[in-house]
Structure formats: C-alpha cells, structure tokens
C-alpha cells in the first residue's frame, strides 16, 4: 500500500486508509506521533510559467472553502488537504470531511484546469493506485474509517 502511494503522489508513511474511486482518490492518514488526522487528495500539477497565478488562485480560493480544508502547495503540485489534531476529529466529523473533500476536489480540479494549462491529477492517481493493486471504492461507511474508540474525545 505504501509503495502504491509513493508511486502515486502521496503523502503519508504512517497509518493509512485509502478510498479510491473514479476519478478520485482520497488519502486518510492518522499520524499518532504528530497527533494529526489528515485527509488529502492531489489536485493538479502547477504549470510551468503559471506558478504565481496558480498559487495566488489557490490562496484566494482558500477564503471560501469550508471548515479546515485548504489548498496547499507541495513541490510542483497543488493538494487539497485537511489536517487537525486527532481529538478534534470524531468519526462523524471525519466522515463529513471525507465526503466534503471528495466533492470539493472534483470541483477544484475543474476550476484549475479551466483557468490554467495544467494537468489534473485525480484520475492519474487513481490509475497509479490501481496499478499498485489498490482499488477500493469510498462508500461513505463510517465504520472502516473511524478512529479507534480510545481516540474519541
């Protein structure tokens, strides 16, 4: 799984759960050392010659995004990311964040691709994950993705 993730675009090297469905991948990482729950998906590659406009657009879009989610830059990619302390993310909230991030990612990828000559990454990452033997649908079942009970606040 970790190998598949690294061959894609992602993201974490500790506890990982993943939902992948066409054309979307979401990565959920729970990093106990950093006391962090993170939900991420790569969006687009930052186009050469359009770096400043794309970074600026990402920051402007952040002002309108829902709670805790932000577009961030990681090397040559824009990533949609949520990260908060483990105690702050009870299971129901986590599920809402996973659903919200999934919906937002599709829209934001389209927004960037419409405005800039950039490559979208959602479908590509799903493909890379499938090649790596990872293929699962995110069905919104809270059970598989919830925190262990001792972590609940």
């Amino acid at each position, binding site marked *: 799984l970790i190998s598949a993730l690294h061959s894609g675009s992602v993201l974490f090297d500790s506890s990982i759960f993943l939902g992948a469905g066409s054309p979307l991948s979401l990565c959920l990482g729970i990093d106990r050392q950093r006391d962090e729950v993170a939900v991420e998906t790569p969006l687009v590659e930052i186009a050469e010659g359009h770096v400043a406009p794309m970074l600026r657009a990402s*920051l402007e879009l*952040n*002002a309108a*995004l*829902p*709670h805790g989610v932000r*577009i961030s830059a990681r090397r040559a990619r824009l990533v949609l990311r949520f990260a908060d302390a483990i105690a702050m993310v009870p299971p129901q909230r986590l599920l809402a964040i996973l659903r919200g991030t999934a919906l937002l990612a599709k829209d934001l990828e389209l927004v960037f691709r419409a405005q800039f000559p950039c490559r979208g990454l959602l479908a590509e990452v799903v493909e890379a994950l499938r090649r790596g033997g990872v293929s699962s649908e995110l069905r919104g079942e809270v059970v598989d993705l919830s925190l262990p009970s001792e972590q609940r606040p």
Partner: protein
Amino acid sequence: VSESFWGPILASVVGVRAQGAFGSGWVATASGLVVTNHHVVGYLQRVGLRRAGMPEIAARVIYADAKLDLAVLLPDTPLEIVPVPLGDSRSVERGEPVVAIGHPLGFDYTVTRGIISATGRLQRGVEYLQTDASLNPGNSGGPLIDRRGSAIGVNSWIRSDGSGLGFALPVHVFAERLAALDAQGPALAQAVPRYGCAECEAIIDPARDRCASCGALIPFLHRSVLEAPERARSERAAAALIAALGFSPNAAAIGDGMWRLRTRTADLVFEIDPAGKAVRVAARLVEVPTADVEPCLRFLASANDRATGPARFSLVRSVVHLEWRDPIEGFDVELSKQRLLELAAKARVFQSILSQKFGAPPAPIELDGRGAR
C-alpha cells in the same frame, strides 16, 4: 448657520448597519419611521441603527422598494427623535443651495454642501434631483436638506465616471407611500413587510419568485428570509466569542454579520459566511508584495501544507489572511476562544516574517464594512 439649526437635523440622522454594508438613514415621521436606500438593506428583515453616543438598536424593514431604491425601517424601540420635516421637492429649483448628511466611508455625521444642479433627471423611469454636494459610499440613504432645514430627497447614487454628479430621490416621489405606512399606526409592528418590484410599480408577493405584474425576477428575497434563523444563530455565536475575548460585539460591529477587533497582536475580522452556517475568523496580516511575488505566495501555500489545525492562509483582495471557519454545529465558545488566541499569536509571527523576508507592506486600514474584508 447655527448649531440650533443643525442640531435637531443631525439628531434625526442614523447609521444603518446591514449585511456587509453600512449606510445612512433619517427619521422621517413623528412615529419614528426611518427612511434609507433599498441597496443598503437589500431584502433583509432586520438591520441595526446607530446614533452618536447611543447603543445600537434593531429595526425591522417594513418596506423595501428596489425600483425607487427606497426602504422604510421601523425601530424596535421608539427613537423619540423629532423627524426631519419633509420639504417641497416639487418646487425645488436649479441653483438652490442644499446640504447632504450621512456617514461616508465611516466618517459619521458628515455634512457636505452644494446646489441643486438639475431637477427631474430620469434613471430607469424614476425621477431624481441632481446635486454637486459631495457624496461617497456610506452617504446612501441620508437626507438632502434644503435651506429651510427640510428633507427634499434621499441621497441615492453617484456617477462614478464623473465628479460632483450625485442624485437624490425626491421626497414627493415616495411621500404618499410613507404616509400610507405611517397611517397603519401600531399595527405596523405586526404587519408583514411589503416589497416593491424592481421593474414596475407593483408590490410583490414574497412567496413567489417573480413579480405577478411584470414578471421580473425577485432576487435573493427567499434566500434571505429562509436563512434568517441560521444567521441569527451564527451571529449569537460570533457575539459570544467576541464577548469572551473581552470586547463589546456592538462596538466591534462594522456591518451586518461582520465585526472587527484590533487586539495588541492582531487585526481580526469576524464574518458570518453567506450560508449562515459558520463564523469566519481572519487575522489580516500584510498586503502581498507587488514585486517578486512568487516566493511569498510559495511560502504561504507551502505553509498551508505543513500546518495542522483549521487555520489556513488565504488571500482576500491582495491582503494575506490567517483564518479559519468555525462551524455553528457543535460551536464551543471556550474552544474557539483558545484557537483564536493561538491564531492571533501566530498572526503576529507570520506578519513579521512576511514583512522582513518578502518586504510585504502592512495591510491597509479600511473604514467601511465592505472594505474590511
């Protein structure tokens, strides 16, 4: 002209605080009805009224007319102010001296003088008085006063491509409607608000999307009516958070659903999101530099990648914000306060980094509710 002339007139002028906007208004009837512009209050049901040295009071919008750009407000608490007498705007002549009173760009009780430049100017079928008295954003809804101290118009709009081209809705255009509202007496407090169509003279039915008479769309009316309860919840949450920080929500208000605090460490803006389901809290840091901007943007976007927690960097009109959105569902004032204090401390650090490392200039100080974004 002496203070005894201006005193009662100024006392009748109020500030009108509505969603994301701040305008002027004035008491126009003995029963205390306040006249302002429709574009100040939109289709909101309730707004705030401010007077010098007095706590803000709430008022209900009882009439909103998009075509005339006119709104009439009924204060929850009687203002007990002598109204500005209504003048004879029909007999006004070109060249007569006039003054405009209002709160342009937050400069309250500003009086500017001029003359009637022309009468009977038509804009979309509505008659206006033209004046060269200086009018600016925030003057909207304030009175245009003649030399007898009577209101002859409602300062409504200016031509932005010109200079000294201001326009006021003459009193005679709306006096009858105002009198009809006033005639309802105490029953007005329970009456359903009435809305004028934006395109014709008809009164529209709030339950419909279009005017039954001319078919024009009725924008935003339903939305604002439906959102009111959620907005009210969000406003209470924001006010509780501001109070928990030791500030007065009333003193900090800069627009409907918008507050601003300047603490020792941060310049903070609180804002109810458009859906009314969250409070956006933002520390304004610096302006993005105009030269060599990419390293600064890269720094901010990369910092968003490293951070844990709801705070994130964003850009609003070239001003860097460190912000988060506090959802009303599960709102916890103590937790929000703790996070806000962390945000304020972090804001100071990043403000210093951004100025020193990237030469980012300080964020501009803006005076009106809309500008504070």
